[in-house]
């Protein structure tokens, strides 16, 4: 590769310098990193809250906090992790950085709108988190804001709800930007069936962001109206229906699970062929399953409400549809495994993360079938089993895929390599801590331990100790990983343009990329994972 005359996006000096050169930059790469630094900051807050909750649960009775503090803590943990981290997560960080590069474009379709999305994200985050520090105490409803409690509690609900409402706009604008970018800005020769799989998953995700997010926005405004004007949407005393709130909330929030997990699947679909040195197995099947998940995912929300008092007909329909969505998810897993079959597997840190993603995602997915079946759902509903399930899917899915992605694309982002032995140690510690933290919750849930309680019966003590110690180990692993990456971004060895022998377009440009990504827009002639 010839040396470029253009400076890299990290060195480029535009109208603004220093911090302003970042927070007013319309470059998709800088915006991706802005999201990463913001999200990682919030993640450290959310993870600390989670650790405090696990320390409270290390023994029955009051350990380090009372019940009301615990209620506030799990609410803030949920709001932070869901609305500030896993929903924007991979699309906003890796999507913003790599989508234009992977489709051969200089930027997203609307760069200024992209920056506005980040600013709205920050404003929404500040509003949501301000609920902790003013008025009548932190909200205690859980991140779901369920009616009727959410309009009756005396805690500081309105900022939390309005913060989530504001964050929705950021998500909608990002989704809109990505859809237009992929329709209008693919490089010459890159037809839809030559587009890499990570952009494909961002495409499916973007449609969900665009269509489903307004529903939760309106629903949250209805809660505000209920609290302030007593309209009677959800309050039975005024002729409302609390179950209607759950319908509206989950019509958005279940597809939101696919906003989280689809891009994660896209990251894995990029990494496996690179490290198996083999064309991905079943490209078209993976594309079809991506769109199928995005589509069918709209219609399964009711499995969150099996014990809420829905009609039997609706329960049957939602259970059936939930089982349907397992099919495209399984198609992806089978294709990933088939990609590895007879590949010349190169063992490196991104591959370990990707392989462990498949492992934890399978556990999360199969336990999801237990929750999708009516009879077993009633038994484990609102128990620690559900907490284990969604942490395996959401944290195991998004978290592991993000870690896989950041270790895969780190050399491209910063132009430097990280210390592989520390990265590998971090992965081992994190993975073991993760399994120790969440696996006992499956057992505890099946034994009947309810979620969202600061106390439990003495018979649940043993597994809870194991789980709390797992949390400590996992946080230690996380610290190793983050310290290694921060240190390597500053002092790591210089990376080549293509350290992993990848075949997609981002590996054809310099590390770190120049401001406009390409000296000349490439013409695409080969499929994305073309290994000979």
């Amino acid at each position, binding site marked *: 590769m010839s040396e470029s005359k253009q400076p890299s996006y990290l060195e480029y000096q535009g109208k603004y310098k220093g911090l302003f050169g970042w927070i007013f930059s319309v470059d998709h790469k800088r915006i991706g990193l802005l999201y990463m630094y913001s999200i990682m900051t919030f993640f450290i807050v959310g993870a600390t809250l989670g650790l405090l909750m696990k320390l409270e649960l290390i023994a029955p009775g009051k350990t380090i906090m009372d019940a009301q503090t615990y209620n506030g803590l799990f609410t803030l943990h949920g709001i932070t992790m869901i609305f500030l981290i896993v929903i924007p997560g991979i699309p906003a960080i890796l999507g913003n950085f790599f989508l234009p590069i992977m489709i051969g474009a200089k930027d997203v379709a609307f760069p200024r709108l992209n920056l506005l999305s980040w600013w709205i994200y920050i404003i929404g985050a500040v509003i949501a988190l301000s609920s902790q520090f003013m008025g009548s105490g932190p909200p205690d409803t859980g991140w779901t804001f369920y009616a009727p409690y959410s309009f009756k509690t005396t805690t500081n609900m309105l900022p939390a709800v309005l913060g989530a409402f504001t964050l929705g706009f950021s998500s909608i604008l990002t989704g809109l930007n990505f859809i237009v970018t992929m329709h209008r800005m693919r490089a010459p020769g890159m037809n839809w069936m030559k587009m890499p799989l990570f952009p494909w998953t961002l495409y499916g995700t973007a449609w969900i962001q665009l269509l489903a997010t307004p529903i939760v926005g309106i629903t949250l405004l209805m809660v505000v109206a209920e609290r302030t004007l007593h309209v009677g949407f959800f309050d039975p005393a005024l002729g409302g229906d609390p179950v209607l709130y759950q319908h509206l909330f989950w*019509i958005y929030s279940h597809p939101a699970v696919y906003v989280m997990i689809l891009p994660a699947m896209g990251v894995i679909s990029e990494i496996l062929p690179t490290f198996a040195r083999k064309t991905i197995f079943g490209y078209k099947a993976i594309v079809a399953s991506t769109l199928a998940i995005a589509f069918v995912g709209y219609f399964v929300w*009711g499995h969150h409400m099996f014990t809420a*008092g*829905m*009609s039997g*007909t*609706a329960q049957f*329909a*939602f259970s059936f*549809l939930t089982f349907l969505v397992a099919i495209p998810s399984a198609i992806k897993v089978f294709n990933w495994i088939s990609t590895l079959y007879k590949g010349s597997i190169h063992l490196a840190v991104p591959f370990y993360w990707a392989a462990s993603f498949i492992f934890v995602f399978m556990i999360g997915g199969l336990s999801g079938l237990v929750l999708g079946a009516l009879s077993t759902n009633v038994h484990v509903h609102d128990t620690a089993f559900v907490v284990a399930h969604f942490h395996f899917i959401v944290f195991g899915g998004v978290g592991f895929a993000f870690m896989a992605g950041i270790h895969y694309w780190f050399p491209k982002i910063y132009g430097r390599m990280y210390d592989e032995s520390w990265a590998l140690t971090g992965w081992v510690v994190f993975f073991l801590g993760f399994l120790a933290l969440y696996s006992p919750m499956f057992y505890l849930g099946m034994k009947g331990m309810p979620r969202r309680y600061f106390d439990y019966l003495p018979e649940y003590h043993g597994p809870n100790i194991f789980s709390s110690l797992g949390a400590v180990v996992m946080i230690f692993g996380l610290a190793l990983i983050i310290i290694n990456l921060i240190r390597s971004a500053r002092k790591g060895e210089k990376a080549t343009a293509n350290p992993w022998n990848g075949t997609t377009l981002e590996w054809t440009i310099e590390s770190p990329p120049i401001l406009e990504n390409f000296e000349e827009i490439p013409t695409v002639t080969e499929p994305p994972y073309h290994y000979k």
Partner: protein
Amino acid sequence: MSQNEKHHIVKYRTYIFVLLGLLTLTGISVAVTGLNLGPFAVTVALVLAGIKSTLVLLFFMHLKFDQPVYGIMVLFVLAVFVVVMIITFLDYSFR
């Protein structure tokens, strides 16, 4: 690819006719609230709102003059909405 596409120019007269149509439908929406239509009151309001939305989509948002793919996208979104409504009423109709 965009430089090869032609932009359709809509006459001001068309926009004014559409605006008048929207205002008329709004007037009708208000007027029918005075009639006692019982359970059909909501249906009538939604039908009128649906017609107004269609006019906005077709003319002000240029769907009528765009490539068919954009019309298909909008129809797809409407189809999702209809299915979501049907599934929701599997609960309310069978409780």
